[in-house]
């Protein structure tokens, strides 16, 4: 049965499809707001003398006013008033003339507008921004039919008068209703109140009209740019989605909005809407690019390939590797069939990224990609590939100069092609590499360089590019470097900034979360507050499994649960050897060696430590190498060869003092003092005094470092040794002072059960 009211179901707005929005080629049309802007422009061009300052401010206002969404008269006048009250008054007057006058006043206004074709000297010349806008408006106005002109005039009147009504009055359109209502009803008051209440409850935003195509394009471009570069300045996900839905309701053919909706739902990790929007976008895109050409470079065949590629990227982002793989294969196949090398290269670069994410070795693929991309002159892909290679190379122990050379070469490429995004990545990568090699100063310098660099990209919408992964990485490194130096105030500053820049729901937030947890964990461990460290382990494990296991082993070791710790370490080592995570292997070996110490198995620890040292040296990991040497020296000391130990220690002392963390510096000096003491026992009396004096000096320095970190257990040991030395040297006052300090700390630290770190 057909519908009761045919017209009920006839809803031209949603879908129509017979009349497309662009059929008329009209991108803009006259609205009351546009008339106000025109009035403003008119006032400005008919140049009454305006102060230079004010004129400049007005000029800056023009573009946003032209491109932005329609404002209410209130908002509009306010913005203009802030720049130049006198012009605002003039504009208002002009609008008043029209709105309170008759239709002919509006017609007169359009007739007197300076036509861009005649005014050669003025700012409104036909090719200027202002001129173009005026031409658009004049054209649109002239195209209006009889009834449309009247409608526009009515709208203008309403627009102007709504300015005077109180902000509490909701509906503009109701002004005309009163006259109708007295036809039937007498109790207007009740009705009106009720009506207001009822209509207020409707969530729909009535005062925001549809955007013209120009305005919509501007809006989309702006939001997309913000999403890419500084997410915090973009609209909130839900607000943006509302805005997009609104836009799509009025213009379902606006495909770009679907793409933005895809990006937006990626922000909140919504796979359903993002998939849906992405596919919808490409379905639409295929339409717009379909004219004439079937499968060529420009035709819809091209968008098909990229559609599949984008789908692969989407699954990649959500970690659906198998799906991503399938989609990628499809993209590759279609690209191959149509000989699209550029697309193929993009596919290839995704392919090695995917392989990397899956955790398999993809260096061969990456090399191929770099070569091919260079052949097809795709600088972006080339340097992206090289950067990826550098990353893999660094992990696999390629020599430093090779890596640095590669990075330098890509940097040249970046600057040549102004690839500012990649410059950022490159700097962040250099920071990480220096950090891995244990050169904290260099790392710090690179990080600062990135943070202080002016971006190459022109600053749009007042946003500098600082919301990317590169910045997050650099900032995290900076936080960790500061933590190493015991500057916890600075660390919390950096972390606070990170939290603001990358709110917890965003993509790169995990980076700083992990960094924050690691720092807190290290602090708790150093302070000997193992119960505080324990909860962090779970949190770390949630973000990074390997790291979590390693930390768990550390805590277990500290709590004297040796067997459990040992089994975890064994498992971890096997896993890391499989994934070639060298840094972690060395660290695991060091902890294992420490476990051997606990059971006095110093001799068994030696080969392990030597192996670790060899690995560290092979991969140029200076920080870890120094740490290993410290361990080695301690083992030797315990095995009763202090001379050897001191000799080995001297090798590490220099890099540690130059680049190491404060903790390491203190530990190294403490160990040196112990060795010196041990050696002094065998010496003759005079030499002994000198040696002990040296030891006292080292201890003093160590104490200074430990107190910087507030590391009480170690400080207690130092004070004890100091007291003993002073006693031996017969310096009673110093001895008493140290003994008192020792006693104070000892009373404070009455936590039994936990192991005191040996080194």
């Amino acid at each position: 049965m057909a519908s009761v009211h045919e017209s009920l179901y006839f809803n031209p707005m949603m879908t129509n499809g017979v009349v497309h929005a662009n059929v008329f080629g009209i991108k803009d049309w006259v609205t009351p707001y546009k008339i106000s802007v025109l009035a403003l422009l008119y006032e400005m061009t008919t140049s009454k003398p305006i102060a230079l300052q004010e004129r400049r401010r007005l000029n800056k206002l023009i573009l946003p006013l032209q491109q932005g969404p329609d404002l209410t008269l209130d908002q509009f006048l306010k913005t203009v008033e802030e720049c130049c009250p006198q012009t605002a008054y003039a504009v208002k007057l002009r609008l008043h003339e029209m709105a309170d006058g008759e239709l002919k006043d509006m017609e007169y206004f359009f007739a007197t507008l300076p036509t861009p074709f005649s005014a050669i000297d003025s700012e409104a010349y036909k090719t200027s921004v202002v001129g173009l806008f005026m031409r658009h408006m004049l054209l649109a106005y002239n195209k209006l039919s009889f009834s449309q002109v009247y409608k526009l005039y009515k709208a203008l009147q309403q627009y102007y008068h709504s300015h005077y009504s109180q902000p509490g009055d909701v509906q503009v359109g109701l002004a005309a209703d009163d006259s109708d209502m007295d036809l039937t009803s007498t109790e207007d008051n009740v009705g009106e109140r009720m009506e207001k209440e009822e209509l207020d409850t409707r969530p729909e935003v009535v005062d925001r009209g549809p955007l013209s195509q120009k305005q919509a394009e501007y809006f989309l471009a702006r939001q997309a740019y913000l999403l890419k570069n500084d997410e915090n300045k973009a609209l909130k996900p839900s607000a943006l989605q509302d805005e997009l839905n609104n836009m799509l309701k009025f213009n379902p053919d606006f495909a770009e909005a679907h793409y933005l909706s895809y990006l937006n739902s990626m922000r909140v990790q919504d796979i359903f809407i993002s998939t849906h929007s992405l596919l919808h976008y490409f379905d639409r895109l295929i339409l717009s690019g379909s004219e004439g050409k079937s499968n060529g470079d420009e035709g819809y065949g091209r968008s098909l390939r990229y559609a599949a590629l984008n789908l692969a990227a989407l699954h990649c982002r959500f970690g659906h590797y198998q799906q991503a793989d399938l989609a990628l294969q499809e993209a590759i196949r279609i690209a191959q069939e149509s000989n699209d090398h550029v697309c193929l290269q993009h596919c290839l670069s995704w392919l090695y990224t995917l392989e990397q994410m899956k955790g398999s070795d993809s260096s061969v693929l990456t090399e191929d990609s770099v070569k091919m991309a260079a052949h097809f002159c795709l600088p972006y892909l080339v340097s992206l590939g090289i950067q990826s290679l550098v990353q893999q190379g660094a992990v696999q122990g390629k020599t430093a100069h090779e890596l640095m050379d590669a990075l330098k070469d890509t940097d040249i490429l970046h600057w040549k092609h102004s690839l500012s995004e990649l410059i950022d990545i490159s700097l962040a990568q250099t920071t990480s590499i220096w950090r891995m090699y244990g050169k904290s100063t260099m790392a710090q310098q690179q990080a600062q360089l990135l943070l202080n660099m002016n971006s190459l990209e022109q600053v749009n919408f007042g946003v500098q590019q600082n919301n990317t992964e590169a910045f997050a990485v650099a900032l995290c490194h900076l936080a960790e470097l500061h933590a190493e130096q015991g500057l916890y105030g600075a660390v919390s500053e950096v972390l606070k900034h990170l939290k603001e820049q990358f709110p917890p729901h965003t993509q790169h937030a995990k980076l700083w979360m992990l960094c924050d947890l690691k720092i807190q964990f290290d602090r708790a461990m150093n302070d000997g507050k193992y119960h505080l460290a324990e909860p962090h382990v779970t949190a770390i494990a949630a973000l990074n499994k390997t790291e979590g296991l390693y930390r768990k082993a550390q805590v277990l070791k500290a709590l004297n649960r040796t067997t459990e710790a040992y089994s975890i370490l064994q498992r971890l080592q096997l896993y890391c050897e499989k994934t070639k995570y060298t840094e972690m292997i060395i660290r695991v070996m060091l902890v294992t060696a420490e476990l051997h110490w606990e059971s006095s198995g110093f001799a068994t620890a030696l080969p392990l430590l030597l192996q670790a040292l060899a690995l560290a040296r092979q991969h140029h990991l200076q920080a870890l190498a120094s740490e290993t040497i410290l361990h080695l020296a301690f083992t030797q000391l315990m095995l009763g060869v202090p001379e050897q130990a001191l000799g080995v220690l001297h090798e590490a002392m220099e890099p540690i003092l130059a680049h190491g963390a404060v903790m390491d510096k203190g530990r190294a000096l403490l160990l040196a003092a112990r060795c010196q003491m041990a050696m002094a026992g065998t010496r003759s009396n005079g030499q002994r005094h000198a040696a002990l004096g040296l030891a006292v000096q080292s201890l003093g320095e160590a104490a200074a470092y430990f107190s910087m970190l507030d590391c009480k257990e170690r400080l207690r040991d130092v004070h004890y040794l100091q007291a003993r030395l002073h006693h031996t040297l017969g310096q009673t006052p110093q001895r008493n002072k140290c003994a008192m300090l020792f006693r104070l700390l000892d009373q404070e630290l009455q936590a039994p059960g936990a192991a005191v770190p040996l080194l």
Partner: protein
Amino acid sequence: MAALCSEFGDLVQIKKQLISVISLCKERGLVHSVKWASELAFALDPLPKNELPPSATFTEEDAQDMDALGLAKSYFDLKEYDRAAYFLRGCRSQKAYFLYMYSRYLSGEKKKDDETVDSLGPLEKGQVRNEALRELRVELSKKHSAGELDGFTLYLYGVVLRKLDLLKEAVDVFVEATHALPLHWGAWLELCNLITNIDMLKSLSLPDCWIRDFFIAHMYTELQMIKEALQKYQSLIESGFSKSTYIVSQIAVAYHNIRDIDQALALFNELREQDPFRIENMDTFSNLLYVRSMKPELSYLAHNLVGIDKYRVETCCVIGNYYSLRSQHEKAALYFQRALKLNPRCLGAWTLMGHEYMEMKNTSAAIQAYRHAIEVNKRDYRAWYGLGQTYEILKMPFYCLYYYRKAHQLRPNDSRMLVALGESYEKLSQHVEAKKCYWRAYTVGDVERMALLKLAKLHEQLNESDDAAQCYIIYIQDIFSCGEQLEHAEVSTALRYLGQYYFKNKLYEEASLCAQRCCDYNDAREEGKALLRQISQVRDHMEASNTTPVRRVSPLDLSSFSP
């Protein structure tokens, strides 16, 4: 059933009610409801003169308003709504009040439609609203809370609310309207458009009236619960409405929905005999004729409908189908376009146009058409399926998975989607998923009888001979049990494989049976004969060396005996 019969026992009473409601609706200009009720009344036996219901009682107010009402109604019939409203503004009677509000509403709608053509900018189209709606809502809600609305005005209030997208309130008001005046079919129909699922339907408290059964049946059809709907309609027929063209057409549409083509065709033919100038539902009829490739019938129908009214959506769809069947796809697309011009929200036409573009290999236009269909109705599974097919043709099996999945979600028990999904998975070498899809397609009742064959072939490919054989066996049983001759049946393939399979497993009895059956088919005859020869050779060999155990002769050795 018994209860139902007793309820409908008094057909005379029903007829009386119908007659009175017809006159009520007629006075108020509710033409569609009048049509429905009259159709139903026509299906019942005529009443004797003394049984005719008395005309409605006349109040003092009615008498006062009679002249104004008569004048306004004449203007209303001439579509001069503002004029009608003007002359009704002072009237007090309920009837006049309804007509007054209704003409204001229709005037707003008419203006809105006119406005659309003539708005300021193309984008402002979305903004064109029926400006009268708000005022109407305010006035009606006032009267509503005062309890002054009768069934008709409640209905109008509901329509206004629905137009303002206040769907929840609208549902409540429509339910109230049905309670106030159960016989007004328009209110039921509006309610039907607002109910989205069965739970919602169950939660409503509806008036206990015979018309409710019509509503429930209609609702079941809408919610794709075809079996229940058919049952309902059957009982309605049995209780005395057997002559109603409305019910016949509804049943036919229901059969169409479950793809019971023969039943549906029979009913439509019956319907055409009873009501030869009917245009409604004829597009569905043409779909059926199309599926059965009944060219002459379709051609006759198309010419007939053009003779009745060529500017109807249904007519255009029928002609489109006709051209499509004659493989004149450009012309077909043209007619679907015309249908869309007549009613842009005509869902079927978008999808059909998509199919036409697919036939013309114009994939991008097809995608466009399907997307439009989805925009009109997100739950249109055919459009999702069409999109999937389009991408499949573009050789993007992974990409089309998404669309097939969507279609499958909407029709979980439709084997076509499942087979399509399975094929895509097979292309992606996701054999496990593919097998699952095919098996599921078979279990939900395979329409095209392809799922098992595909499953068997997949097993064959993967060298899972036991599973493959199993599938072929079920396939053959299936084909022979259904009895009808299928175009693409591949019984010979199945038999050939089974023959070889039994032979390899040394089940010579079965193997020879299969081989003999193979000989019935042209394409497998030679192979069947060859197999028979092999079997007899092996048997001879076995009899010759009776003492040797069978097991020593491996299948591979046997193959060397073949000529």
